């Protein structure tokens, strides 16, 4: 039918963007990196109130059902401007019976999260919800999904097939770990290790704790959750890249050398044109993968192809964001190479997201495995 966002989707994105623009997300990121998760959790709660996490949770567990929300957020808490009137997801989402876990809306939300460098296990929490939904064990669902939907529950989720480190294990309320075909709930974790993106705090989870489920269906659900995580990481990267490009455009228009704005130099312009090109062509891959994962293309597509679509989005968005980071740094000159400038938050995140939930090489292999 149409490969465009509709009005409601636009409005959803704009609402989130306005809300995060009003909140001091950069301050929350810096605090998060310094082990103070308070400001970050406040932003998290506002995202939940706007319906972001509810998108991943079915109505019966307090997901995006009409009455699934705990009411309006506290205006003005996280920023000067009272944002969105009720902060809740637009009517259409709450009312829609569809609300599949992975929709275009979720990707859209994650682009906006990337634009604002949102800290915390945002991807992992949604991936955990995806895992639970696929396992569909009512006891597990009841235990976790409502908390995820309402924003009270942050989940650190690790799949040992994808790497040993848990993101924000210390900050999260729950640590899920996939080991082979078992789903574990880890009580503890090893020391938090320095990461190149200080806001991504990595630790090895404990592996010998409560076994929540096991068997081949765990592996299948974990594969699905990994696709969800890869897609949302790609969407987040896209937002990171967009922001890096936008801030750099602003900068090259005001910074003068040789008596003119550096943005009038062709070498500068062409680097920025290339950054835009990479982002513009990554974006439809991200949204097409969202459509495929939501089942929109299943009929023609098949599971392996869908996985390839997600992997393609991950490669393209990851490379585009990383390229934008390199460009942003270069064109800012020395000031770009400082921690003080907020630009550093996005530069470092771009590199981290490139490898998270699928390295470029692993994703390229998956693209070819799914190619017709």
């Amino acid at each position, binding site marked *: *039918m*149409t*490969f*465009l*966002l*509709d009005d409601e*989707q*636009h*409005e959803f*994105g*704009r609402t989130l963007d306005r809300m995060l623009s009003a909140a001091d997300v950069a301050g929350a990121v810096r605090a998060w990196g310094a082990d103070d998760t308070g400001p970050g959790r406040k932003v998290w709660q506002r995202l939940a109130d706007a319906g972001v996490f509810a998108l991943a949770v079915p109505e019966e567990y307090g997901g995006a059902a009409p009455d699934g929300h705990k009411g309006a957020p506290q205006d003005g808490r996280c920023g000067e401007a009272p944002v969105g009137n009720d902060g809740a997801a637009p009517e259409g989402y709450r009312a829609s019976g569809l609300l599949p876990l992975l929709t*275009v809306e979720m990707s*859209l939300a994650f682009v*906006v999260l990337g*634009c604002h460098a949102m800290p915390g296990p945002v991807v992992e929490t949604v991936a955990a919800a995806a895992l639970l939904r696929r396992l569909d064990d009512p006891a597990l669902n009841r235990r976790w999904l409502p908390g995820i939907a309402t924003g009270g529950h942050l989940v650190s989720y690790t799949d040992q097939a994808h790497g040993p480190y848990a993101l924000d294990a210390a900050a999260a309320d729950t640590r899920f770990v996939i080991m082979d075909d078992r789903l574990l709930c880890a009580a503890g974790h090893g020391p938090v290790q320095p990461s190149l993106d200080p806001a991504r705090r990595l630790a090895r989870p404990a592996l010998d704790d409560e076994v929540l489920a096991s068997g081949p269906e765990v592996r299948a659900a974990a594969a699905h959750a990994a696709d969800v995580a890869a897609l949302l990481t790609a969407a987040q990267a896209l937002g990171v890249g*967009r*922001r890096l*490009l*936008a*801030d*750099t*455009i*602003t900068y090259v*228009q005001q910074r003068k050398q040789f008596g003119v*704005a550096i*943005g*009038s130099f*062709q070498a*500068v*312009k*062409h680097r*920025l*044109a*290339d950054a*835009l*090109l990479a*982002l*513009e*062509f990554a974006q*439809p*891959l991200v*949204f*097409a993968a969202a*459509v*495929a994962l939501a089942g*929109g*293309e299943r*009929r*023609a597509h098949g599971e392996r192809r869908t996985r390839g*679509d997600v992997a393609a989005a991950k*490669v*393209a968005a990851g490379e585009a964001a990383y390229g934008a980071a390199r460009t942003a740094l270069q064109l800012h000159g020395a000031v770009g190479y400082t921690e003080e400038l907020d630009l550093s938050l996005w530069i470092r995140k771009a590199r981290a997201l490139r490898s998270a939930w699928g390295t470029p*090489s692993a*994703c*390229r*292999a998956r*693209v*070819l495995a799914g*190619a*017709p």
Partner: protein
Amino acid sequence: MDLEHAPEDEEFRHTARAWLTTHVPVTPLPSLETEEGFAAHRKWERTLAADRWSVVSWPEEYGGRGASLARWLIFEEEYYAANAPGRVSQNGISLLAPTLFEHGSPAQLARVLPPMASGEVVWAQAWSEPEAGSDLASLRSRAVRTEGGWLLSGHKTWSSRAAFADRAFGLFRSDPNADRPHRGLTYVMFDLRAPGVTVRPIARLDGKPAFAELFLDEVFVPDEDVIGEPGQGWRVAMSTAGNERGLTLRSPGRFTAAAERLVALWRRADPSDTALRDRVADAVIGARAYHLFTRAHADRLAAGASLGDGPGAGLGAHPGAGGLGGDPSGGLGGDSSLNKVFWSELDIALHETALDLLGAEGELAGHANDSPDQGGWADGWLFSLAGPIYAGTNEIQRDIIAERLLGLPKGRR
């Protein structure tokens, strides 16, 4: 958001596929850059036209099917998947025709389009001059007023297919006293066999006479062959330029089909070479990205793309937050420049990767017996190398992207 085609559109796909399956020549036609090949391709155009497949997006009265943009994209997918011959009429169909639809008179449409659709008249583009390449507006060929028309004089060059084509369209300076270089230009159509025209073929990098220079000495053109108002040629030409860079010149179907052939090639080659594998994957990703970008673009056009509130508006209020396949302003203006740079670089990457996969056989060109694909990849590589040069070089396109889409200041040219 949804990527499924409507059932009627899928039906259209099946009709096209069925036709192509029975009509596409089993042995590839000789290169259209040779006299023999040109004639064979002209015949193929006639075959296409006979069943109204040569110009599917045109109105029926001119030999088309009135197909929507979405159906045109489907047709192109099927066309390239079927390995059908290259289009000798491309200059006319994708450059001149859109210009005529926008600026031509009804009489011009009726006179020019049907023989174009059937391949009876093949067109060449006569824009470039020896001193006017990227700086096209500095062109010097003249059109001088005469009784009932104009007299053209000057020197055009790099005119693709002019060696064997019938007619040409181009820009001429009709008012030498205009205050700016791009004023006082007139857009005309002329006969390549008219008295006063000398065509000198130029051998391309591969030795084939794929383009030519034209020497014009008081060549008469009647008023009826002027497109738009005399003196307004630049404005008329710029609508053509958008088409040339944009999707009509390089439809996604072409790259999708090439990427599929590349994957097949890779599956036969050494799978342990991960560097090559990654390049194959990137070509597949690029072809899919181009396909999807174009889908979004087509959908925006179909939705009557409005200015100011593009599909990216929900992605944040940053200048870097563009729409799905588009221009942050929501307009479509700069998209063709994004397209141009992307497809031209993708085309080279696809072909270079194929040649590296082929190894020693990759060196075999033009219907070589030993080559698994009869030199298709080698010939394609030679052709792909021109992509970043023609239709406005990629340097010029990057300037346009930076200035029109990113809002950066104009620099010195």
